């Protein structure tokens, strides 16, 4: 079971900020996860492709879309950060 988290504007688009998913074995990278989300919810799928969206796997920022998501407990999709 993997928890998907959505922050900022993406939490509005997803309709929630947290989603527990049983990801199929074929979803092994961030890119594959994006495609899986887009297949289930095209609007959300497009929103997570927007410029500035960052991804963290198990609370670590991803540098590449090829990063492994296998066995990840928590994957976060984040709208552009805006603290301060």
């Amino acid at each position, binding site marked *: 079971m993997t928890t998907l988290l959505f922050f900022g*504007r993406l*939490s509005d688009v997803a309709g929630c900020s947290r989603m527990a998913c049983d990801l199929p074995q074929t979803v092994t990278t961030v890119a594959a996860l994006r495609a899986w989300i887009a297949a289930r919810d095209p609007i959300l799928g497009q929103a997570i492709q927007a410029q500035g969206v960052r991804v*963290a796997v198990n*609370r670590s920022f991803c540098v590449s879309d090829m990063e492994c998501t296998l066995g990840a407990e928590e994957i976060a999709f984040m*709208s552009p950060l*805006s*603290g*301060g």
Partner: protein
Amino acid sequence: MRVIITPDAFSPDAELAAFSAQRNGEAGALASFVGYCRAHAGDHPVQRLELQHYPGFTEVEVRRLAEAVLARHTLLDLLVIHRVGAIEAGEAIVLVAALSDHRAAAFAAVSEMMDYLKTDAPMWKREVGIAGARWIEPTAEDHARRQEHAK
């Protein structure tokens, strides 16, 4: 170094006084910045800001940013307090303060920490007014300022 992410309102005056009191006659320079929630944004009234954060990640990342600032400048101490959750108009959102022997280091540290917070801290700001809510995202200027600092 103290880094605090808190849902509770805080007094920047009291925190700054306490931070400066521990300098013991050693530091010559104290620079600080306070960001407040404004009652207006442009021409429309703001009731409050809502700062979403990622519990357990935001704290770690902000501390990491503060450590980078501390490592880049000759400081005696650094203080970062950032509110999350609902922040009413007039309340402080963020306080950053740096104690140093030299004013240039103190200024640079505070300014750089603020730039990092704007673009690199996992927090999401939403402005709530009478007409509804809207997300605030960093401006091109924020990103340009951030780019001036080495990674």
